[in-house]
């Protein structure tokens, strides 16, 4: 295969939402960047098509307060609003409806997170909010713990993806939940996006090697010394992992299996 200067866009879409097709398997968050310029450079280098945003009150006392959508080219990137900050289903539903008023497409990355220390999502609140929002015609992309039965329930409800976490948000711990994520992937009827905890390209590659459909990364890029370079590196990790999954990994063996012929070794008896 050819090594394009940037990652080659895979030919087939892995996700279709309200008729819009997505091919890039790296989704990028827009939070935590030190500067607007670093964020835009990272978005550009990542090849991402989907960029997540949050909703917050406008601070009318701060003249510099502006919408991030004034910075991002929304004709190029699909903007996926999240419900970060919501601790209950009711709050998440309210924020999703407000996000819908932005005319970004009726979709939402659903987060219901009552726990401030580990930022682990509430499965029951997430399921309740997903049910209401799906009924209202939202495409729901729920952020969940790596919980296979919950992933199945959300898929059965009509979620367009499930997004299990590798490890806590922003922790960079990698795929602490790898075995559970593997089960989610094995049982999946909707695309699986590994979201949260990815700290390096190797984490992203590992997720994709298991058969994950995509990764969502924010902190690892935003807080890297060079966000654009890290975005490019993680995108390459995603592509490498995806290609490895398609190519088929060899089984693990307990003992060695020589790579060179065993016959004809010089000096053999």
């Amino acid at each position, binding site marked *: 295969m050819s090594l394009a200067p940037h990652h080659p866009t895979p030919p087939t879409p892995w996700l279709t939402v309200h008729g819009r097709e997505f091919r890039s398997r790296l989704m990028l968050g827009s939070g935590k960047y030190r500067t607007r310029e670093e964020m835009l450079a990272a978005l550009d280098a990542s090849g991402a098509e989907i960029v997540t*945003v949050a909703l*917050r009150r406008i601070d009318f006392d701060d003249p510099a307060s502006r919408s991030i959508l004034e910075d991002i080219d929304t004709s190029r990137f699909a903007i996926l609003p999240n419900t970060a900050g919501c601790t209950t289903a009711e709050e998440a539903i309210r924020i999703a409806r407000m996000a819908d008023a*932005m005319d970004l497409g009726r979709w939402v990355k659903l987060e219901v997170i009552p726990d401030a220390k580990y930022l682990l999502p509430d499965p029951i609140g997430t399921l309740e909010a997903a049910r209401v929002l799906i009924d209202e015609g939202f495409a729901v992309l729920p952020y969940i713990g790596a919980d296979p039965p919950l992933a199945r329930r959300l898929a059965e409800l009509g979620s367009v993806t499930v997004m299990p976490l590798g490890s806590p948000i922003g922790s960079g711990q990698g795929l602490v939940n790898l075995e559970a994520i593997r089960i989610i992937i094995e049982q999946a009827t909707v695309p699986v996006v590994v979201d949260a905890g990815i700290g390096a390209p190797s984490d992203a590659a590992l997720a994709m090697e298991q058969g994950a459909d995509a990764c969502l990364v924010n902190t690892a890029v935003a807080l890297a010394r060079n966000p654009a370079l890290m975005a490019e590196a993680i995108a390459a990790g995603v592509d490498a992992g995806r290609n490895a999954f398609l190519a088929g990994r060899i089984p693990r063996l307990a003992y060695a299996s020589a790579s060179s012929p065993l016959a004809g070794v010089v000096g053999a008896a």
Partner: protein
Amino acid sequence: MLVTDAARARLPLPDLVTEAVAGGVDAVYLRDIALSAAAPAAVVADLRERIGALRDEGTACRAPTTCRLVVNGDPETARALATGLHLRDADMSPEEARSLLGPDAIIGKSVHDVAGATRAAGADYLLAGHVFPSRSKPGLPPAGLPGLAAIAAAAPCPVLAIGGITAARVADVVRAGAQGIAVIGAIAEADDPRAAAAQLRTALDAALQTQKESGMNDASSPTHAEAAVAFVVNGKPATMPEGATIHDFLASKKMTDAMAIVERNGAIVPRAEYGSTALQTGDQLEVVHAVGGG
């Protein structure tokens, strides 16, 4: 002030009162409590405990530091319940009640006209109304804002406007001379009594503040009293000239309609309607936009 009416409440009395106080009500007239409750003393004690618990919650609610309870009936009932006494038009005079209950008792009286107000010497407050057409007084002609103004001018004590009061009308009744408001349905029949009470409280505080400022500035700046709407944006008070729309407000903050999402009193306002949606006194706005997020 919340006036209770069991027939119009959606919640049981203790819950309604607690929600109303949490929203900012600072006086409750427990109308007919001595008639409707089997054990009025227990009801009052329960309410006091709930209101006390609200205050302990601190910032979670807007409970004022004091919430006065008044009942109607004879002075003996008020004494037994340790509440204030509210006198209806046909009841004894405030002076007579005062002579029975002493100088510290809270005594209020309902009045419907200037003559009633002039007979109210000795009262701590008057309920003046009904100002607007009210479901409580079907068929009876309302006093209107001029009637309220006349009562307020003749009253020996602060006047609370009652009858058809809504958040949008608070500024008008305060301009007419009311120093407070009393409501039944505006809170009791609301889907969310706490939110309704908070909205009224916000509108009343803003109107009283505006009234105070216009009083101070009347001599030097006659244009200052120009009508304004007072509302709350993202938890902070704001004012705009009367008739201003959501678009006008955003423009005053150098914001375009395109970037802001507006929720007004719990309902999202479609962007196309920003220019045609006039702000009302008491409105609660949440205005959000997209920020960086993961």
